[in-house]
């Protein structure tokens, strides 16, 4: 897998490295996709739904407990191109800045952008500013939904169940080992 780590990872690492050095904070893990082996099967969506269902059973989740929980990942397919899209926990999170109630914040420990369901009023302002369209509206509960990394699971359900290993999770340490000699100076980008 290491040979795939190229420019994107370097860029990502540089940003995370900044946090690591300046703030001494645990860096975050991210989910990566190998687009060339993603066949758009949609199992990441299915297992995301299962993960966020009150019962951990596929049949019950999809057949017995309606409405089904909504997936927090979206598969896009066009011709032979396909990939899944989810929140990337942007360095400058437009959603958190736009949130009217203070429900969306960055968790200082995990560095993930999280939605506090108690505070969220489901107004969709965050959805309007997300460049990936990665925040979804749950009309049923009047809440906004996004990838929560399966609440701290070691391997998120989408990654664990991807039949082609098109999805994988990367720790900062792995990336750092590979690219630490090539880290560009930290990007000082404000927005």
């Amino acid at each position: 897998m290491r040979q795939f780590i190229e420019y994107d990872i370097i860029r990502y690492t540089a940003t995370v490295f900044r946090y690591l050095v300046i703030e001494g904070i645990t860096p975050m893990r991210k989910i990566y996709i190998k687009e060339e082996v993603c066949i758009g099967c949609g199992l990441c969506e299915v297992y995301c739904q299962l993960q966020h269902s009150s019962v951990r059973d596929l049949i019950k989740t999809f057949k017995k407990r309606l409405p089904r929980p909504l997936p927090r990942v979206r598969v896009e397919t066009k011709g032979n191109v396909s990939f899944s899209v989810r929140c990337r926990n942007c360095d400058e999170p437009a959603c958190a800045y736009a949130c009217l109630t203070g429900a969306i914040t960055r968790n200082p420990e995990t560095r993930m952008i999280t939605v506090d369901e108690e505070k969220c009023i489901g107004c969709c302002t965050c959805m309007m500013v997300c460049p990936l369209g990665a925040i979804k509206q749950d009309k049923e509960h009047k809440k906004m939904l996004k990838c929560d990394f399966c609440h701290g699971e070691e391997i998120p359900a989408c990654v664990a169940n991807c039949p082609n290993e098109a999805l994988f999770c990367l720790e900062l340490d792995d990336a750092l080992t590979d690219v630490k000699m090539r880290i560009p100076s930290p990007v000082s980008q404000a927005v």
Partner: protein
Amino acid sequence: MKKTERIKYLIIGNSAGGIGAAEAIREVDKNGTIIIVSDEPYPAYSRPLISDYLSGKRSIEKMNYRPFDFYEKNSISTILGEKVNRVDFKNNTVTFSNGHILTWEKLLIATGGTPIVPPMDGKEARGVFTFTTLGDARAIDEYLNQKTGANAVVIGGGLIGVSVTESLLKRGVKVSIIEMKDRVLNIILDEITSAMEDKAIRASGAEIITGHTVTKINSNSRGEVESVTLDDGKTIPCSIVIISIGIRPRLELVQNSEIKINRGIVVNMHMETSIPNVYACGDAAEAYDFIYRENRLTPIWPNAYLGGRIAGLNMSGKTAEYPGGTALNAIKYFGVYIVSAGMAASPDSTYEEVVANGESSYKKLILKEGFITGMVFSGDVDRAGIIYNLMKDRLYVNSFKNDLVTENFGLLSLPEKIWRNRLATSPLESDSSKSSVSPC
């Protein structure tokens, strides 16, 4: 002069802009003194939630914009419930109404907006309110608690008017909205989506009178509101009046100073005013609008926070540029979901409209010379952010504009160059050792 202290960062205003600035300052400067001043006596609260407070859905504790220990954790001092009377830009001081004086090094004016109350006979009567602060919501709540079978007249059918209408209806108050123009929410919605809201509001039991204004508020012998008189002479009995015509920047602190003011305090891309070391943001400021490509008032919460953040970064020594903001509204009044951004209607015939009317959704884009300048979506609003960002980044969309309003619109509806940029990935190459990997 009672006492002077030198404050590194003084922030006037304890809402989105002020908090955005304070959080940004603390990212850069962990120790510099920050004082946030507000004439409101509460910790920062989510202003849009005052409607939930009034309807009884949410208590004050559940309106907090930040956790209870926010100020302490970030070493931010607050002076709440105190009014600043004067700012001296020559000596870098502010004077409070109690005579207390503070000296600042960097100042942020995030005073927000103030409701417009037109000259109108009887507006001093008891039972006449505005609706922009938690204080307003509490006052209305207390007033209504003394009344039974109240009915309200809401003057102005904009965001604030419709929002207060929803809360009042939930409390069992009858409501008549008086809107001067020909439709409700006429600034942020187009005719079609206005009509959707109109229908939903009426279905909930409120009355809407368009094309008229209130010329007089009439009160009884106890000085309490008993009716309003419209411009056509018609009288509507009511026990409470909410004036929600709009808001304007709150400028009393800077009005007679040398600071440059147009409609709001004029700021540059660093959110700095015409006076060095003095910054402004939010509803009080006139900052860059990326649709009109000039400085404009865009009094919405997200722009206030981001403007405050940029101001805070610059105040603490970083260089950051405001990317610009524009009108942006996501509403869900009476169960109708509508989002709009930029222009809601074409200003003239040089603009082009791309419209898709689905079974349960409506999508409209406004374009000028191949660039998006406005959008109004209702029903299916998921992924609308992808389009908002095309507009914000001023990307040329002429060749794929029709794909943007289709039902299964997504990143792959965009040209490869754009979606790859969004996913921060590079194109696949035939050499398999150079695969593309994108964080997503």
